């Protein structure tokens, strides 16, 4: 009788179940999994892109002599590559 009384007094423990579900299922399981994916997949992919760019930058910097002709040459190569891409896309 006393147990029934306690269950009724606490509104069938519905609030307890809701808290349990929110804390253990939503926060601790679902949210943690999503957080892990965010850190280890999405953030890792972004960081990897940054690292690759940084390494490439480091590598290219070694070839830099500070001459105007080198810079304009690099620019010209870039423009040619861009035009090539546009041309290929246009044909496709």
């Amino acid at each position: 009788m006393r147990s029934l009384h306690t269950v009724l007094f606490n509104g069938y423990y519905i609030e307890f179940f809701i808290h349990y579900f929110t804390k253990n299922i939503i926060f601790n399981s679902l949210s943690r999994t999503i957080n892990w994916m965010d850190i280890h997949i999405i953030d890792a992919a972004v960081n990897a892109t940054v690292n690759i760019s940084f390494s490439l930058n480091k590598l290219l910097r070694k070839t830099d002599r500070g001459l105007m002709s080198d810079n304009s040459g690099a620019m010209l190569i870039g423009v040619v590559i861009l035009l090539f891409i546009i041309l290929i896309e246009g044909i496709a």
Partner: protein
Amino acid sequence: MTNLLILLLLPFVGAISVFILGKLNSKLAFWGAELIGLTLFLITLKLYFDFSEPLNMPFTWFHLASLEIPFGIYVDELSLVMLLIATGLGFLDIHFAHDYMAKDPFKPRYYAKVLFFIGGMILLVSAKDMVSLFTGWELMGLASYLLISFWHEKKEPADAGMSAFLFTRFGDIFLFAAIGMLFYLTSSLDLLHLNTLASSGEIDKNMMYLISLFIFIAAIGKSGQFPLFPWLMRAMEGPTTVSALIHGAIMVNSGIYIVARLFDFYVAAQTLIVVAAFGAISAFIGATSALVQTELKKVLAYSTMSHLSLAFIGLGAGSLAAGMTHLVNHAVFKALLFLGAGAVMISASHVKNMWRFGAYSKKILFVSIAMAFGALSLSGLPPFSGFYSKDTIIATTLLNPQTKGLISTLTLIAGVLSVAYISRLWLLTFSGKNRDAALFAKVKKPSFFWIILPLLIMAVATFLMGFTQEGIAKLVSGSDFQKPHVEGLVFGLLSAITLIFIIIYYYYVKRLDITKKLQHKP
């Protein structure tokens, strides 16, 4: 039209004015709120007496390319009844707060929030489309959070406010999704048009089913139904005048109102049985939990859950008139019971535990009489208003083949148990022997004008409303209403009420020593 515009804008303008005026002189905050509350009620009365046909104010909020976002106002008989409840009980609640909040240093903030709250409800029940309805719905949600956590410097009220906010927001996400789906499917958000589209079968059946369920999730969140009800019990941490507004007059009614407003949509979507099923579970949980609570307000809170469920069951069983009539009756007798509880607490140094009361009718007779009227109506005793609507709901569930069986049984149990918990509340508080002599000695009589008068007005209203039930049913359903009849139901109900009252009287007055051993030890 002018009156309607004033009715819509005055609470919000008033909230700002009351807050600013109150900073100059805190008494001005009360008088400003009282005046605005009275004006709102008088305007609603004028709208009611002048009513000949629905007031329609279509309005476009903004255009976005070919999209047209509406923000219309529409007032028909159903809206008018809800407006009368919101403004009438809102005014009495403000009046009552004069003494209840007398010692509070933040009165301007309180009255500003109450007016803001009433404004949200007025907008909601006057909405022509889902956009204006959702705006009113959210404004009221925000106001309820601000009012429940009014004493936010204490941990419990702050947590209770947050709980109410999160639980109701959970439902609101579904309402927002439903609005988006409706707009995508029909390019219309007009409530009446949606009903027409649904009835004529122009919306996909499966989508209608899903949308109506989404709206219902929002409704159970707002009306504190299973499983989203815990916030309703925690909301008791706010001032009792706020509890009366939230639990009786305003907020919890909005969930039922939205289902009633989209009743044809629900009929076409065939989701009324879901409404009835959840209502039956909530009614049973509410009624059985109310039976064992020790705090005055907690009993009433669980009772609110149970009685709103009865209104949901009425709608779910296919009777708009039964559900809405009970909603109207409940609003009045529950506001009366909550304010009565507030009066008891004012008199008893803000103690809430009923086990410390007893024999209070010797000290606060008028409060005990007024609360007895509320209790009799809640119990469903003729000729009080609760009798007609409760009897109609039970009869409807018994006559509907879909609800006959488990749903009607749970409804019957919940309906009959309401006599048990409310008579327990009344007997523990007002009759028998006093159980805390020190507290009893300190009990003081509340002011007649500020505290007892609003209670007596509501007590008379709940009694007189018992004689106008068919008129109310006609108003809220928009057509003539024939009360369903089940052979022997009234006799059975009255016998059960009498028997239960005798049992409760025996265990809570005559043999309290046995019962006391069972009570919960916090």
